[in-house]
């Protein structure tokens, strides 16, 4: 164990955090939390290949990277100025202002064995954003946050979003930057009070060599509605772990996801949709494309708890393999602990439809372009849910940029 590079990375991180801690925000409540998380992290370590939920990740690539302490990131924020009832603060300021309340609000990382990255984010809490929409406030224009990681430093980022009862918000987050030397971690906590609605567009366009572990947990209360459109389109290794908790009666979650990996890249999406309350609804649709030596995994768990009678869930996973060396592992899992629920799920993995391909060829389209068109169309099915025209355009460019004959495909946009 003495030569374990991970343990070495963690020890280095602990030293750095120790030096930084007096300057980190949030008062005693948060320094205690950080300290506790760090001790657990040192004792329990990060998950590895033996852990079922992490087995597809390229650990060799991750272990090569350092876990240095938070060095901050460039932020970019676009929102309608002076919207009453909408508060946005850098996380540090929010922790200084109401650290106690936030410490009480945010659950501690769980005790399961795969929470190492939660602990890492918790131990590093300091950088990020806090957003609150007051009860009854509907924010008309989308709020856009650009998380631009610096090329030479990791950033362990936390985002906290609170929606009061009946509040509505469209949040667009773009994650960009990063480099090949470090592993970055981020954690997002979403609180949707009764009857609120959050539309959440998340675009990962990290630079080609970056490695990022993303974690998200949403608490969706009675009659609240959470919709996420997730685009995993960049980075050398990108992992997203999400848990959507449908806590109150009638709570709803929708997740539309797309990952595209080429070259040596890797995407790994792990989602848990937890139907805790009665008559909760979820719909999940994930499309994946892998070419070259790209590798991807989708692991989608649906849990229907004992109190979730009358719930309704559907999950589909469609995957496209464009080369013999590409790999996608899709694993839907359904765990139902109550009667009278409606659940459907299905996963397919294959290559392009030969009939569609021949149809295009028979119209004079060359084979490479035809494959590009069909792949693009497969992605567009998910991209189509994005309502913001500029963001949609950006996503379409990113998708098209990875496909053959992009000039012709650009015309589709």
């Amino acid at each position, binding site marked *: 164990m003495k030569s374990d590079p991970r343990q070495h990375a963690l020890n280095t991180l602990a030293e750095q955090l120790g030096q930084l801690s007096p300057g980190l925000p949030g008062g005693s409540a948060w320094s205690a939390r950080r300290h506790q998380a760090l001790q657990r992290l040192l004792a329990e370590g990060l998950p590895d290949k033996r852990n079922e939920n992490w087995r597809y990740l390229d650990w060799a690539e991750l272990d090569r990277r350092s876990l240095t302490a938070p060095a901050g990131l460039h932020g970019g924020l676009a929102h309608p100025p002076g919207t009453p009832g909408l508060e946005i603060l850098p996380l540090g300021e929010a922790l200084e202002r109401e650290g106690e309340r936030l410490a009480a609000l945010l659950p501690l990382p769980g005790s399961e064995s795969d929470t190492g990255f939660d602990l890492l984010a918790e131990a590093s809490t300091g950088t990020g954003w806090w957003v609150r929409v007051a009860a009854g406030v509907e924010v008309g224009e989308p709020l856009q946050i650009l998380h631009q990681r610096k090329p030479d430093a990791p950033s362990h980022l936390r985002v906290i979003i609170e929606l009061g009862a009946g509040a509505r918000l469209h949040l667009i987050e773009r994650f960009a930057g990063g480099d090949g030397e470090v592993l970055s971690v981020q954690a997002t906590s979403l609180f949707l009070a009764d009857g609120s609605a959050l539309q959440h567009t998340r675009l990962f366009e990290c630079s080609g060599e970056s490695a990022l572990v993303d974690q998200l947990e949403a608490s969706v209360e009675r009659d609240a509605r959470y919709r996420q459109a997730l685009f995993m389109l960049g980075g050398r290794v990108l992992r997203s772990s999400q848990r959507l908790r449908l806590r109150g009666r009638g709570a709803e979650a929708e997740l539309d996801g797309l990952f595209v990996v080429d070259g040596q890249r890797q995407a790994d999406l792990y989602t848990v949709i937890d139907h805790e309350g009665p008559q909760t609804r979820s719909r999940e649709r994930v499309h994946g494309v892998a070419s070259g030596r790209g590798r991807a995994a989708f692991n989608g768990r649906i849990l229907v708890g004992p109190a979730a009678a009358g719930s309704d869930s559907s999950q589909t996973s469609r995957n496209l393999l464009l080369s013999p060396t590409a790999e996608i592992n899709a694993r839907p899992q359904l765990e139902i602990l109550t009667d009278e629920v409606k659940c459907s799920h299905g996963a397919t993995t294959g290559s392009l*439809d*030969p*009939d*569609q391909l*021949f*149809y*295009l*060829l*028979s*119209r*004079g*389209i*060359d*084979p490479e*372009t*035809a494959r590009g*068109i*069909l792949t*693009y*169309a*497969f*992605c*567009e*099915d998910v991209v*189509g849910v994005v309502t913001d025209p500029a963001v949609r355009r950006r996503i379409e460019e990113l998708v098209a940029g990875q496909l053959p004959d992009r000039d*012709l495909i650009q*015309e*589709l946009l």
Partner: protein
Amino acid sequence: MSNNGATILRIENLHAGIPGRKILKGLNLEVRAGEMHAIMGPNGSGKSTLASVLAGRPGYEITAGSVTYLGQDLLAMAPEERARQGVFLAFQYPVEIPGVNNVYLLKAAYNARRKHRGEPEVDAFEFLELVRGKMKLMGMNESFLSRGVNEGFSGGEKKRNEVLQMTVLEPTLALLDETDSGLDIDALKVVSQGVNSLRDPSRAIVMVTHYQRLLDHVQPDQVHVLADGRILRTGDRTLALELERRGYDWVQAAPGAA
């Protein structure tokens, strides 16, 4: 009947099938410019195989014979090459391609032909006007322009779309694979109108059909009866009427009639 046009398609002793099954067993056919031919036959006679082999659909084996298109070896060409040289197949079962816009596909196909002929790409606005004109002919409404290829189309709409594409692309050799099946009488009239509009001294049309009723609306120069992979009989329109009256068994029972 014009027998003066240049030969567009010549099929000689064609044997083809799928692995383990022979379907076409020595088929001969010659089609000249300006002509319209109807190939009729019972289910399983090889009609759709013939259309597929001519368009280059993968999965078929050619075991003997030749197909010449404008003096070139058609079977040696890739499907997209055949299309660019003016071969068009109206599919029996047009596929749906959600996410690919109808007009986009049509424009890409149109430009692929133009590029092949060394012509510049068509202006987007002009092209839309051209498509709109043809849509009117085919009784199609505006919503078509914004939809995905055949996405959510009824059987009849898909067939109309095939003929629409054909009228826009103006092929030299138009192949129609059971374009009339699954159409109600109104759609059949519209589709026939589209096919008739394509008749041209420089063009050849080959229709594959199971039913005689299409021939109430279009006037082929020659009617061929295909059975068991060969053309057993060739005649004019009256052959189709006779078939309608006497059934396919009559032809199959009269060997050597071709």
